[in-house]
């Protein structure tokens, strides 16, 4: 089917706007894991854990990835927290250590550079302004030479004129053209050889592939939690929830393969998700008037039948 499923479309869109995601309501982690794995900003993940306590303790893999990304030499440091809820603290601590280390190294480098500079200043030759008592003897020589550049000998034209420089420039352009002829005059196979190839995989594609590999791995069973700790945090009162009159359909396992492998919400439970609101623009309170308020004087008003 050329059209991908709505689930896939929404997921892709969500991943693209992952920086807006700060609240996932009471959705279980396993349902949104492929999306949450794309989070790049540690503060955002902290916020998300604070807003949605049901994912606390399950975000270890994301934190580990962030630690791998941000902490140099993370293997040598203790990074496995005793309580899986404390991954963010581990990250914060390691990040602090890493930045302190970096600071110290910068300071050391600065000290070393300053020492070098000092050393160099001590050994430099100094030019002394010594035009003393020589003026009268040399002056005749200057006038005798006639040239503007040298004091003695060589009364001929100066070596560097504009023409020489210009010829050199022209020659340079010619050589460059010889070395790299225009694409239109080059045979196709040479063009293909010269074409640059991608040497490094873009970071985003690596991340996507990793996420893909993770989701292909051993899958966890979806176990509905007996009491999701959602009621006080999400703020949706139970009275506003619609009453479900019919039971949800039993899931059929022989659905399309793409549908079968995506994470499922536990059946028989209802979840609510908040809408992330972009902070820059407040929600419009009144619908904006698109029509001009006054009548246009150039347009004749329609006559109504009486």
């Amino acid at each position: 089917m050329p059209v991908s499923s709505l689930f896939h479309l929404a997921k892709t869109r969500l991943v693209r706007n992952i920086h807006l995601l700060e609240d996932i309501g009471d959705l279980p982690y396993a349902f949104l894991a492929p999306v949450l794995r794309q989070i790049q900003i540690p503060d955002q993940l902290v916020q998300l854990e604070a807003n949605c306590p049901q994912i606390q303790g399950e975000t270890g893999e994301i934190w580990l990835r962030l630690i791998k990304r941000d902490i140099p030499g993370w293997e040598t440091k203790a990074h496995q927290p005793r309580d899986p809820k404390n991954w963010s603290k581990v990250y914060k601590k390691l990040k602090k250590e890493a930045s302190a280390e970096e600071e110290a190294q910068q300071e050391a480098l600065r000290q070393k550079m300053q020492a070098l500079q000092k050393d160099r200043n001590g050994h430099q030759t100094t030019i002394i302004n010594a035009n003393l008592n020589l003026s009268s003897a040399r002056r005749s020589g200057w006038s005798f030479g006639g040239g503007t550049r040298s004091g003695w000998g060589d009364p001929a034209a100066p070596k560097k004129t504009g023409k020489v420089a210009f010829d050199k420039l022209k020659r340079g352009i010619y050589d460059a053209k010889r070395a790299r002829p225009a694409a239109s005059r080059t045979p196709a196979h040479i063009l293909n050889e010269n074409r640059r190839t991608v040497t490094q995989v873009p970071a985003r594609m690596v991340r996507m592939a990793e996420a893909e590999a993770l989701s292909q791995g051993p899958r966890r069973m979806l176990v509905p939690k007996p009491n999701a700790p959602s009621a006080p945090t999400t703020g949706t009162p139970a009275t506003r929830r619609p009453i479900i009159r019919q039971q949800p359909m039993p899931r059929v396992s022989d659905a399309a393969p793409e549908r079968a492998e995506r994470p499922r919400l536990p059946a028989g439970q209802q979840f609510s998700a908040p809408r992330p609101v972009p902070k820059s623009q407040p929600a419009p309170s009144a619908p904006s008037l698109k029509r001009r308020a006054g009548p246009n004087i150039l347009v004749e008003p329609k006559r109504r039948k009486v």
Partner: protein
Amino acid sequence: MSVESKPTSAYVTLVSNDGYEFKILRDAACIAGTIKKAFDQSSGFREVSENRMELPTINGVVLEKVCEYLYYNQKHAESKDVPDLEIPPELCLELLIAADYLDV
């Protein structure tokens, strides 16, 4: 509310939890697995006799987007290069839940 039974009409009605009704083509609606099962002739659900399905977990805005997707899917069923469906980012989470429920 249409109470009298219509055997099979080309259109079915989807009702959101805040009361919006969407009349869409039966073929398009049946792209969604859950809707298809609900309107299955042999099932004997009330939906079959009324040609009307209430979706108490989906609100009007999301259901409108779902209907848009169903028509989009139907329109581009055979085409190769498909333009992306425009999804506002703030609807993504709710759409994910709705897509999971409706099996699309």
